[in-house]
């Protein structure tokens, strides 16, 4: 840990990294919101209180510009922020607005839009949820069918979105809609911000294979949306979707590695408890996971070092999603096998081991290679963008120009 003076700042000019870290740690410790309530409504209120406190104290949005209420941190400081945030185990943002919509609005929104949307989002006052996927489109996102017909100062939106998380608590939906013809594909899509309580919107929970409803379907039936709530140009929505703020994901990668470190340690403890570590085949599998979870951390380390040294994260920041997805699927599947006959039990059985977390994880991680772009699409992207292999004439990855 070095202590050279910071050349960029969080809020306090001239502060060293160590001082910055200490200040964060103190704040998180002092204002920690306490145990997470069990009941959903209480939990929501608890989380909103925390986000508001964080925002009001100037500790929200490490990568956001200060003009929108963020901290405007440089990359290295963002890494420190994520480290301390994970260490303190305080709640993260509500909904998917802060991570996904905000970079687009910050980069491509009008000043008025930025003013209206961003601070309430970051403060947790207004919860945003994403509406990109459609049942008929799947990986071919640009095949979306939800239409937005222009009617004076408004769009009239009709269609269906699916796999929207947090839609049940959302105040605002950010969506992609077709303003051009289906033949326009990527060129006929606009980016709209829609009031989640507008007439004509129906939100329906979507039960997934785990038996839970972590996602919703949203139906739009002639929903009227002011034209001023469109981000970017009409038919110019497609290039906006991958906008990101610097290397935010890379800055949070250490947190992910630390989480899997914990999960693996718990699995090893389980194996030991069940006497399975005396089986060399079990030990060999655990060793494989051990190597991979360490590589996850090493990779995060390396990507961060590369960004600091060159400003670029290098290919490893793109390949790690596939690496992690395979890891978590195999880890959970192995855990279930370790349970033997107890792996045949569901979560609610009193005999279920550790309340069925491993069996549930086995089911849930099926989504690791499907959600937010299938593994197949990710391979396309890596092959085309990093390795420079030719695009499939039709199935190549789309190339929206991201901001920042």
């Amino acid at each position: 840990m070095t202590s050279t003076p910071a050349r960029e700042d969080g809020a306090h000019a001239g502060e060293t990294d160590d001082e910055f870290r200490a200040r964060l740690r103190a704040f998180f410790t002092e204002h920690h919101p306490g145990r997470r309530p069990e009941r959903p409504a209480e939990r929501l209120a608890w989380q909103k209180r925390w986000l508001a406190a964080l925002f009001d104290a100037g500790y929200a949005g490490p990568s956001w510009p200060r003009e929108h209420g963020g901290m405007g941190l440089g990359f290295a400081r963002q890494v420190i922020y994520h480290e301390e945030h994970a260490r303190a185990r305080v709640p993260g943002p509500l909904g998917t607005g802060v991570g996904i919509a905000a970079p687009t609005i910050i980069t491509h929104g009008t000043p008025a839009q930025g003013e209206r949307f961003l601070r309430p989002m970051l403060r947790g006052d207004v919860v945003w949820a994403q509406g990109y996927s459609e049942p008929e489109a799947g990986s071919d996102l640009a095949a979306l069918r939800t239409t937005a017909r222009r009617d004076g100062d408004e769009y009239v939106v009709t269609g269906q979105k699916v796999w929207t998380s947090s839609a049940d608590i959302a105040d605002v939906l950010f969506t992609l809609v077709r303003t051009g013809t289906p033949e326009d594909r990527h060129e006929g899509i606009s980016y709209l911000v829609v009031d989640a309580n507008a007439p004509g919107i129906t939100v329906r929970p979507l039960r997934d294979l785990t038996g839970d409803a972590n996602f919703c379907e949203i139906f739009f039936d002639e929903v009227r949306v002011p034209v001023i709530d469109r981000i970017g140009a009409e038919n110019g929505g497609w290039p906006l979707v991958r906008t990101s703020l610097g290397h935010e994901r890379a800055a949070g990668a250490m947190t992910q590695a630390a989480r899997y470190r914990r999960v693996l340690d718990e699995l090893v403890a389980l194996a030991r408890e069940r006497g399975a570590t005396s089986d060399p085949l079990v030990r060999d599998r655990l060793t494989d996971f051990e190597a991979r979870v360490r590589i996850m951390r090493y990779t995060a380390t390396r990507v961060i070092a590369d960004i600091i040294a060159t400003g670029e994260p290098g290919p490893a920041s793109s390949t790690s999603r596939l690496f992690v997805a395979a890891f978590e699927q195999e880890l959970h599947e192995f855990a279930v096998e370790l349970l033997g006959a107890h792996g045949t039990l569901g979560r609610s059985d009193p005999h279920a081991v550790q309340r069925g977390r491993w069996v549930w994880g086995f089911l849930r991680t099926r989504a690791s290679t499907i959600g937010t772009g299938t593994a197949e699409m990710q391979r396309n992207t890596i092959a085309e963008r990093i390795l420079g292999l030719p695009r499939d004439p039709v199935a190549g990855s789309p190339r929206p120009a991201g901001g920042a």
Partner: protein
Amino acid sequence: MVTATVGTAPSTGASASTDEQAELRTVTRRFLAERSPSGSVRRWMDSAQGHDPALWRQLTGQLGLAGVAVPERFGGAGGGPVELGIVLEEMGRALVPSPFFATAALAGQALTASGDGASWLPAVAAGSLTATLAVAEGSGSWRPADIATVASPSGDGWSLSGTKMFVVDGDSAALLLVVARTDTGPALFAVTGDTGVQRTRLDALDPTRRLARIDLDGVPAVRIGSDDDAAPLLRQVLDLAVVALAAEQVGGAQACLRSAVDHAQVREQFGRPIGAFQAIKHRCADLLVEVEAARSAVAYAASVATDPAERPVAAALAAAYCSRAYTHVAKENIQIHGGVGYTWEHDAHLHLKRAKSSELLFGAPTTHRARLADLVGIGSGAEEDR
């Protein structure tokens, strides 16, 4: 068809399936396709009974399937593991919730193998008696040596006490075959009464197959089989059970591959059926390689299931290979379906749960593999006492 012009089978062990077997397959498949489509599976898996009693009556009455592997002298069709495998493959394909597996594959085969099933086999064959086999306990192990349930002589018969777990259809089966330890080793017992029996349905990962915990407290029971060491009989019964399950797994694996291929043929993305993309296409080809290998494993295991020399190896191999294959194809089916495959509404997850659950029910694949290793002489010997 060149059947009429070729000679007899060469000495490869190959046995052609008979016309009767082909007919059995066709009839069963057609019947289940009509009577047990997906909607019906879902309705009955959520029902109190867990299966459709009318379907069971038809299966056992009209089709006589409960007795497919029961000797003719007990009113069965006199078939064997091959015929049973044909029916189970079709049941697995259609994912039918049914007392069939427990009754015909577990209990029926155990009774037949014991040579002492005259009291129950006629009713089993007729479909009027559902039955199951209870071996594993809290640890989940199927090794006779791990059994703690105790059988004590009591009057003319025996009295059982202990707790059985993971009993397939244990919540409803009328006849319970229970493995318990006696002073001279483990033995097989029949329990038909309710006194002292407490059945608790478990929350099973696989919603199409009921599992139960059964607590036995001084339960009157009848010993089955001769008084000799019952370990070889139990081993044989477990071999027969895993071969039967492997047949069901192959049926399930085929259904998953078919579902994936059907989806890939019609689902369009980027203006083409996704099955035209090599990422999907080649994966389906690799899955077929695996499914065909699994078919070979189970076909062979069923054909030698009455041969005490060949059975153990073939059974261990089929158990290890087919369970992995089913789970793998079930996972890939979800992946190929993408988002829709992740929903509760699509049947893909029912196969995944059936697959994973079947994989673990009679010992994980590693257990069967270790046994295979021991049997062929490259193992540690640790599984040999199974």
